[in-house]
């Protein structure tokens, strides 16, 4: 499970995250949505150790990231928005490293990459792959082996239709295996199809949360549960209202939506 408490972060004097709280249970999929610069990537970077937590606390699988960083990171997988690995890295070298970190055999990582259609590119460097292939490599490796938490930052970015389907399959499999999944995305339709719960971030504050029906209602729209939900319109209404009325942060974004 993932537990984020009172997270705050600023880049220089610009505060990008303000008292952010979130619980994600094992087997639950939560999506972070929000406009550019809302703080979605910052949440994920703080939760995975990419940024040092100055204020607040992060717990992964019961281990505090500050006091037990190795134990906490052993239980998480992370796909950053930016590549996060040198372009000169050979795919098989990275696969061996990740396999060792998860305590699985390297051949298991090679097989997973093979299943994703990358078996012939094991000796290539990441720089020799297309953007979509790179994204697939990192996605497969981020979700390799048993993990308590999976963090994905714009996982479907630069992927074709097959790649997007793979992302959805990986997220569903992780959920079925009891992994807590937290991902950020701009693709609201995909998000609505995948997430048990969505958290809307505006200017570093969580301003709304819930399942599709709840967010549609929160946006002041009607939906009878059949057909495509008007999630885009509801999202825009929530963001506009939050910006017009000032930021009203949710005290704790934790309750699972039935």
């Amino acid at each position: 499970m993932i537990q984020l408490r009172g997270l705050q972060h600023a880049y220089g004097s610009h505060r990008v995250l303000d008292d952010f709280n979130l619980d994600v249970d094992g087997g639950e999929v939560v999506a972070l949505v929000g406009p550019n610069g809302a703080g979605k990537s910052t949440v994920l970077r703080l939760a995975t150790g990419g940024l040092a937590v100055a204020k607040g606390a992060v717990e992964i699988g019961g281990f505090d990231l500050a006091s037990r960083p190795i134990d906490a990171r052993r239980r998480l997988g992370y796909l950053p928005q930016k590549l996060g690995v040198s372009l000169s890295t050979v795919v098989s070298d990275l696969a061996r490293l990740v396999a060792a970190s998860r305590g699985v055999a390297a051949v298991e990582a090679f097989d997973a990459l093979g299943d994703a259609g990358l078996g012939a590119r094991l000796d290539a460097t990441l720089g020799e792959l297309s953007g979509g292939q790179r994204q697939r490599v990192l996605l497969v490796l981020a979700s390799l082996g048993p993990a308590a938490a999976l963090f994905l930052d714009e996982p479907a970015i630069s992927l074709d239709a097959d790649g997007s389907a793979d992302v959805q399959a990986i997220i569903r499999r992780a959920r079925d295996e009891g992994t807590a999944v937290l991902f950020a995305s701009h693709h609201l339709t995909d998000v609505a199809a995948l997430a048990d719960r969505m958290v809307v971030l505006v200017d570093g504050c969580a301003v709304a949360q819930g399942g599709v029906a709840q967010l549609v209602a929160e946006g002041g729209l009607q939906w009878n549960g059949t057909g495509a939900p008007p999630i885009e319109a509801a999202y825009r209404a929530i963001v506009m209202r939050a910006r017009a009325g000032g930021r009203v942060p949710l005290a704790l974004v934790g309750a699972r939506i039935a």
Partner: protein
Amino acid sequence: MTAALLRFELAGARRARVATIFAAGFALAGIGVALAGLSAGGVLSVQGFARTSMSLLQMVIWVVPMLALLTGAAAGSEMRDLEFVAALPVSRGGRVFSRWAALTATLGGAVALGLGAAGVVIALMAGDADGWRYLRLALVSELLLAATLAVGLWIGIAASNRTRALGIAMAAWFVLVIGMDLAVIALLSALPAKGVGAWLTAVLLANPVDSARVLGLSLFQADAIAGPMGAALRRVLGGWGAGALMLGLLGWTAVPLVLAGRTLKRG
């Protein structure tokens, strides 16, 4: 896990072109210096190990810190962006050590390969007399490389971006190779003669490049060229001078690595 990361970093460092450039550069420089050029009679002559080592020392003092500081700064700066690797269960100190060890092994191997290739040519053409001096020169080069790589890594991790890191690395090179010597000359003229030796020795140990320079010169019992630094060192530390300098260089390796690990943790 740190062992797995070390293997990963070694694989990455081996692929970097800088190692090949290091090896080729040192081999060419070694052979080039050994070939003393056409003598007055128009016959190509080859210097032995003693004179070649003395000539190469100056190049080592200038070139090794520059390449190591720049390589370290670039590698350290990159570490801040490697979030996929940062999320793996390895301590920040382990990440810094793995990267430093991989770069030191690869670039150190390249220096050894380059100087070794030149050494074979020298031995074949001029004999192996004084070969030990050449070997010790290689050891001094490796110690200096390890220390300045560690300093470069720290600079790269502490700087806010790659451009700034490289700029600070160049400034550090200037200070270590030239600036501190100028400061020492000023110090000599400002301080009373009595007690200057201890100050100079402290300054010497405070600069890894000067430590390597005097350590290198001590191979040749070259008292005259060791200058005031070497004279002060001998007076203050006596026969322990070389050991103190080597310890100083090891300190200049360990301390920046610890600081780099802490800085990466805070970042």
